[in-house]
């Protein structure tokens, strides 16, 4: 079994117009910048993008939006230090937004990966974000029913990867990445280093390879935070 793919372009090649794409990361931490930029090079349109945020500056997801690739964002916090690209387009009515509480977003993605079509959460009960959703009482407390969230593709960023697709993550860059890996039909990982099978201690694997379709090495990955401090623009 060898899930490694030599080129970023090859890794993102299956992503077509209209796809729903989960993209890992919380702000810049764990954001698969190289995969996102490879996807911008390919240029599919009309995408639904699931991420905690809605981009920052003019790289990564912000650059995807700026290139007109994104029809809809599903996220919890579309504000950031410099969210101008999303903000301007949103206020102009050029992009849809589904706002989801952060823990509910994480749990919906986890449910998508785990075959749980719906679950109940106390989060958002009695708020505008629960409007139209079923509610139910359990043990005297009110809960909101939330549905699973799945995607056609997930773009994720790991630290180590092996040909089986096993992955580790670096510090808080873990965030949504392991969840999204489970919830997409096709999961594409970029890693800082590909090691041979057995090169990751079986107890230290965070994402087992069963959830991963392809692994590409991006040896010294870019950090969105640093790119934005350099006022980088992609492409």
């Amino acid at each position: 079994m060898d899930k490694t793919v030599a080129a970023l372009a090859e890794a993102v090649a299956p992503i077509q117009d209209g796809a729903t794409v989960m993209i890992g990361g919380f702000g810049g931490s764990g954001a698969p910048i190289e995969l996102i930029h490879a996807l911008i090079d390919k240029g599919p349109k009309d995408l639904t993008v699931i991420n905690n945020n809605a981009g920052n500056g003019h790289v990564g997801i912000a650059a995807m939006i700026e290139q007109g690739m994104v029809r809809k964002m599903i996220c919890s916090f579309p504000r950031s230090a410099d969210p101008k690209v999303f903000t301007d387009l949103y206020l102009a009515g050029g992009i849809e937004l589904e706002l989801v509480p952060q823990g509910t977003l994480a749990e919906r993605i986890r449910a998508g990966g785990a075959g749980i079509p719906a679950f109940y959460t106390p989060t958002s009960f009695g708020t505008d974000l629960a409007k139209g959703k079923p509610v139910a009482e359990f043990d005297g407390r009110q809960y909101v029913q939330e549905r699973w969230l799945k995607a056609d593709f997930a773009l994720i960023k790991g630290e180590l990867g092996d040909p089986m697709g096993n992955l580790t993550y670096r510090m808080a860059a873990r965030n949504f990445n392991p969840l999204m890996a489970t919830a997409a039909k096709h999961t594409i990982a970029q890693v800082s280093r590909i090691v041979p099978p057995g090169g990751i201690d079986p107890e230290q694997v965070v994402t087992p390879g069963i959830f991963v379709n392809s692994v590409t090495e991006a040896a010294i990955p870019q950090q969105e935070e640093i790119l934005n401090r350099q006022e980088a623009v992609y492409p």
Partner: protein
Amino acid sequence: MSAAINDIKLSNAQIAWRAAQDIEDGAYVNLGIGFPEMVAKFQPAGREAVFHTENGVLGFGEAPEAGEEDWDLINAGKKAITLKPGSTFFHHADSFAMVRGGHLDVAILGAYQVAQNGDLANWSTGKGGVPAVGGAMDLVHGAKRVAVITDHITKKGEPKLMAACTMPLTGVGCVTRVYTSLAVIDIEDGRFVLREKLPAIYFDDLQAVTGAELKVDGTVRDLIVPAL
């Protein structure tokens, strides 16, 4: 006729061998406890499946030598296993996320009864005693392909492939292929469709020991397996 069937029918190892031929290289596979575990031994040359055990290991290998067991490293049948390079550990919720979330390619299970609509009964005879279900009810609703390996008839000569299960169900409409000691049968649109049968058995005799109509849709191939 039962006697004749007992003369020609496949051994469990041969049924397992036949099931193993349909497992693709790189497939993620869960094998039920007991008889289905034999399937792992018969992977065709050049193919390597990745085996999942619901107690939290992916990519395990064969049993260790006697005396070499590590009892922290077992499968769902509580038998000692070994690791292969690239294996991983995870907890039970993640393990059943793999199962329920549709990430396994194949699950192969034993059966008391299989119905023509894909219903499976394999966890309880319904006759009392201590009930035990394990992961069977999860597995039948998780894997992309749920296959059963089983003797075609019970020891008393009664059909195990039924119009409807009479024993308590493990899952509804979940089985897609049955490998028996006499035949390979797909379940399509609520019907048993005969794909392969032992050359030594006539269709009518096979039908006679099957509890629901065997449909034929295209060629019925000979079921040929090595001596095992």
